[in-house]
């Protein structure tokens, strides 16, 4: 039998729920449903959606490619300064994104620490789609690291030992044993990274600037269209809302039921 929870807790929980629901309802209530098809076909809208898909998927892929090995090292290798490395890997999670953007500008900008060196190689990041991807990668990376690290820790080390006993080399073990076992973590990490990259605003506008079709991703377009054409801003917000719901759907097994870790 479940005991009836105290009234005060129910009231506060209800308030929390209200705070989550009201903004979404507000957005849906103001949505120009009748013009949806017409405005979705506008070139600026399509450009922003297309660019956001390209940059966020690239950033999520890169975050996995770089974050998973770092997660593996943090989970499996003992070394001095590990706590510091982990803190560093999580820094973008707590850092205001605009500060990340400023830092990226000083590091990778044309006159930056690394950027001036990149410029000699003919690579420029500020004001380019590549720059937008780097900004999104920066903020998404921690999600790959924490999610995959937890996955690696949960791995049964005996499986790898067994594979080694059977004569499998390191690469074969990685491909046939470790990666399949990590698949759920990698999928969750990909979804989280993608969601974070898709929503990135501060670092992108600061580091990559804002040019339709090149660096103006969906959140930037929402912000600027709100000043000029609120209807379009609402429409783009709905697109982001739909994509966010899609991410929650992808994560449903992992997050929406509390028992599975």
């Amino acid at each position, binding site marked *: 039998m479940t005991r009836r929870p105290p009234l005060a807790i129910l009231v506060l929980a209800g308030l929390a729920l209200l705070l989550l629901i009201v903004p979404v309802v507000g957005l849906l209530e103001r949505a120009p449903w009748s013009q949806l098809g017409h405005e979705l076909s506008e070139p600026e809208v399509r450009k922003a959606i297309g660019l956001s898909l390209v940059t966020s998927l690239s950033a999520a892929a890169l975050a996995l490619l770089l974050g998973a090995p770092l997660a593996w090292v943090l989970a499996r290798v003992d070394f001095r300064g590990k706590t510091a490395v982990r803190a560093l890997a999580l820094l973008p999670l707590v850092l205001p994104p605009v500060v990340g953007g400023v830092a990226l500008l000083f590091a990778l900008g*044309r006159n930056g620490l690394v950027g001036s060196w990149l410029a000699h190689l003919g690579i420029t990041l500020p004001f380019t789609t590549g720059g937008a991807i780097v900004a999104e990668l920066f903020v998404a990376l921690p999600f790959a690291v924490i999610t995959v690290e937890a996955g690696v820790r949960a791995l049964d080390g005996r499986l790898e030992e067994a594979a080694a006993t059977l004569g499998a080399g390191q690469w074969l073990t990685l491909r046939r044993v470790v990666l399949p076992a990590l698949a759920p973590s990698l999928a969750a990490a990909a979804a989280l990274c993608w969601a974070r990259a898709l929503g990135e605003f501060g670092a992108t506008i600061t580091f990559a600037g804002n040019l339709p079709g090149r660096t103006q991703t969906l959140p930037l377009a929402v912000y600027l269209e709100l000043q000029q054409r609120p209807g379009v801003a609402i429409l783009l917000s709905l697109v982001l809302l739909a994509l966010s719901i899609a991410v929650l759907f992808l994560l449903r097994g992992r997050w929406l039921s509390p028992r599975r870790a």
Partner: protein
Amino acid sequence: MARLGPVVVAVALLASACSTGGTRRQVTVFAAASLGDAFKAMAKPFADAHDNYGVTYNFAGSQQLVAQVQQGAEADALATADQATMASVPAKDRSGAPAVFARNRLVIAVARGNPKRVQAVGDLARPDLKVVLAAPAVPAGKYANQSLTKAGVKVSPVSLEDNVEAVVTKVGLGEADAGVAYATDATAARNVDTVQIPDAYNVIAEYPAVGLNTGSQRAGGQQFVDFLRSPSGQAILRRFGFLPPK
């Protein structure tokens, strides 16, 4: 009951913080980003001239400010960087008619020493230059487009920044080679030199201000608007490179 003690104290503190808010009443002024430095310098003289009032600012792009007012933000006065944006404030939210209190002109901002040798508006079309403009949604961007159209120059910007100060910042950091900004912003920035845009191609920005009904200090808002046009307000605006209203 004893457990509720801290909660009661916290609620009481919150309530008192809301009702008094210190000895001075705070006038909330929404102002265009380009007014930032001059308005900050005005805070003390305004407060000195009006014993009852202090001033709190919210600086952002003019369109953003109007959107905030329309969505019910509490503000006592509004100063925008153009008349068109001001005109979009609903009459019921304004306590009077907007009046122009300052003007500003456009210049080309370049890195200190002008290393890329930008001489005239026409140079902005050079393919070797990275040019940043303000987005067309903000007045500075709209004026820049008008100016470039008048000069018959077609520019392919690398970025349309969301406010005019970001344009100057990108030039000052050396990430962009040139940008079109207000004379006031470019003059205030340390690492930036300016190239004049001739009057024939220039667009003079007019800054209107108005008192609002949407805040709690309606009278204070009107006093701030009046202060802008007073001799001491005008002297401060002049010091930051603004032109007097016509």
